[in-house]
């Protein structure tokens, strides 16, 4: 089946291309997928930072004295933190990584619809700003994504904050939808001719599956927002407190969106970290078709998970302990086993981002262990269940952050031309895993029946998450010049381009005969 007798070195000509690359042009009108990806990533980093800092502030003692507090209630996640991290931040970070990296992995010279992707980026920025304004100009009249009830039609009329929040979230939803359409279309239509679907790397596969799931789930969220807007503006009583059906409809609407969203922020991590482990192992991933299938299954399972029963106060976006939710662990387990097997059979080396994969594994194990503890000890009452689910939610956020920051660290040479030292990468992974466990602690403790909730510890954990996210910034700001393949172990096409790549990505695409086209014969046979 393969290809070459020795590792090809197709990047020599690319270095020259990068050196003669055109000067930085106008970021406002760019159609270059690397720049569009970086814009998305910048917005996602800011939103995630804001969300984690908000969470730290609300968990800190005396948070009720802070200005603009209108949703704080004990250990519960606040609407602002959920919106900042889950609705805006993490999706934007993943869309950015997919937009910037996946075309390189496919041997593509450009994305399929650059103007659509550009529209998506700027719509995302406009929506994020409006959403932030909605949270700061005053108290929206009951609109709260983290809440069980929409509370929109409890008699309070709409106000400026509500209008801004609805408009902002709608724009963010539209941007996510357009971005997902752009990524999926690029993967299906812009691959180099020799790069068949079965030869795509794991990250491209998970990107395709995640985009398709977003295309299916995001319109439901937008439909819910439209319904809410009509209700507020034309005197409807759809969401009135006494209208049980209306409340349930809201829950279904947000749940169909919220459940997939919760899984979809983690699903791409399986693909991205699989590519990281491939590089660290120095050999193609063991049982790669199974890994590919698991990455796709994780994204598709997100669409099915919404059918699991309500619990944890019927909250739409909490990871409730149900069978459907628990089955998500299966694809994760398949991927992790493949990682471990590849590392054992390969020649492992410490590469940037590899410790993120290890930390991801730790977080997954801790989450599974806490679920087991909850099942053995038992959770008494719906409030306790909600608190426990909040703890698990933060762990999901930490896992997603480990995945996306691991991806940014791994592919930093392709994003900015800089190489992240292993020590810095390891430090970031450590900060994030520690932050994730600490911030989940108050929820776990409350959920398991303790009267005292260590919210100070939780606030410290949220602050650590914010620090971990901020540590990604230095590797992405500015423009460096690195070797095309700094570790010398890259097996996928992006490592055949210059670091950072030229505007057109490839002068010529190396021979592609497998999902690991840069592997030598011996590596491929292994």
């Amino acid at each position, binding site marked *: *089946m*393969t*290809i070459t007798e020795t590792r090809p070195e197709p990047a020599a000509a690319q270095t020259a291309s990068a050196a003669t690359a055109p000067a930085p042009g106008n970021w406002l009108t760019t159609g270059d997928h690397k720049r569009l990806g970086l814009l998305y990533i910048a917005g996602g980093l800011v939103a995630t930072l804001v969300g984690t800092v908000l969470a730290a502030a609300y968990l800190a003692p005396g948070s009720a004295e802070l200005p603009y507090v209108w949703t704080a209630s004990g250990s519960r996640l606040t609407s602002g933190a959920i919106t900042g991290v889950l609705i805006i931040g993490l999706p934007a970070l993943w869309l950015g990584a997919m937009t910037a990296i996946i075309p390189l992995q*496919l*041997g*593509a*010279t450009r994305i*399929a*619809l650059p103007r*659509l992707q550009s529209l998506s980026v700027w719509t995302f920025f406009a929506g994020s700003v409006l959403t932030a304004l909605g949270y700061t100009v005053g108290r929206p009249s009951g609109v709260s994504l983290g809440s069980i009830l929409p509370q929109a039609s409890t008699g309070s009329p709409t106000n400026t904050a509500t209008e801004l929040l609805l408009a902002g979230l709608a724009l963010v939803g539209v941007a996510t*939808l357009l971005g*997902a*359409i*752009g990524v*999926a*279309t*690029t993967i*299906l*239509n*812009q*691959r*180099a*001719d*020799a790069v068949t679907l079965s030869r795509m790397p794991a990250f491209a596969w998970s990107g395709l599956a995640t985009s398709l799931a977003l*295309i*299916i*789930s*995001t*319109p*439901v969220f*937008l*439909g*819910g927002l*439209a*319904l809410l807007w*009509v*209700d507020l503006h*034309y*005197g*409807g*009583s*759809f969401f*009135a407190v006494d209208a*049980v*059906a*209306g409340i*349930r*409809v809201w829950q*279904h*609407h947000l749940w*169909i969106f919220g459940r997939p969203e919760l899984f979809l922020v983690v699903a791409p991590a399986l693909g991205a970290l699989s590519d990281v482990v491939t590089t660290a192992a120095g050999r193609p991933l063991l049982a790669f078709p199974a890994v590919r299938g698991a990455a796709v299954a994780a994204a598709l399972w997100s669409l099915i998970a919404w059918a699991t029963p309500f619990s944890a106060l019927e909250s739409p976006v909490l990871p409730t302990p149900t069978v459907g939710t628990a089955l998500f662990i299966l694809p994760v387990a398949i991927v992790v086993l493949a990682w471990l097997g590849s590392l054992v059979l390969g020649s492992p080396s410490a590469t940037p981002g590899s410790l993120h994969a290890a930390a991801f594994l730790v977080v997954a194990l801790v989450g599974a262990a806490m679920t087991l503890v909850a099942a053995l000890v038992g959770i008494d009452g719906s409030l306790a269940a909600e608190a426990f689910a909040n703890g698990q939610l933060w762990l999901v956020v930490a896992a997603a952050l480990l995945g996306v920051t691991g991806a940014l660290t791994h592919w930093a040479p392709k994003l900015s031309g800089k190489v992240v030292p292993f020590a810095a990468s390891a430090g970031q992974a450590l900060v994030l895993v520690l932050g994730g466990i600490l911030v989940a602690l108050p929820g776990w403790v409350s959920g398991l029946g303790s009267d005292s909730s260590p919210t100070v510890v939780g606030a410290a954990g949220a602050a650590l998450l914010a620090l971990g996210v901020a540590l990604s910034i230095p590797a992405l700001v500015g423009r460096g010049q690195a070797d095309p393949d700094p570790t010398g172990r890259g097996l996928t096409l992006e490592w055949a381009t210059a670091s950072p790549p030229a505007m057109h*990505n*490839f002068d*010529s*695409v*190396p*021979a*592609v*005969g497998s999902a690991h086209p840069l592997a030598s*014969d011996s590596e491929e046979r292994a």
Partner: protein
Amino acid sequence: MTDVLALPSGATPASERERRSVATASLFASVAMVMAFAGFAAVYLTLRQEVRPFPPEGVEFDFYLARTLVITVFMASLFIEWAAYGIRKGFQGHALVAFAVTILQGIAAIIGFWFLLDTKLGFAIADHPYGALAHTMVFLSLLAVGAAIVFIELTMLKAIGHQLDARNFPLMRATATVWHAAATSWVIVYYVLYVTK
């Protein structure tokens, strides 16, 4: 061992990729459009047992207009396929006539939707807990048909300017797909509001 040739990304002409991309993206947009309405339908069908009498007591639904709209959008689907056939076979005259009829039927559907919202739905948003749901679904159907009509008009302009033929048929297919999605959206709303009640 088999040698595999290195084929650069540009081996397939860029123009061909672009045309395929427009068709693919339109297909995804159509899926998203239908999914939004399917979401409305799903929650309604799941929860109708708990809804107070719907339509509100004393309100008689006007089936005539709603069914006429179903027939109208279905007929327009046939005509847009006729336009596609004309483009594929190089029958410019056929295609232009089919485009024009499709657009006229689309405009008729928009007027019908507005009439339905304004007078024929029989109750206001505030009259019933599901008033917002019913009005939102009909209004979004109107918007979906409107967006599809704009897309069809742009494609027809290309056909008039002799920029649309069998070589860039994916654009025609994309146009037809968007219309079919808009038509499907109304069929979903009709089924929910009028058939299941």
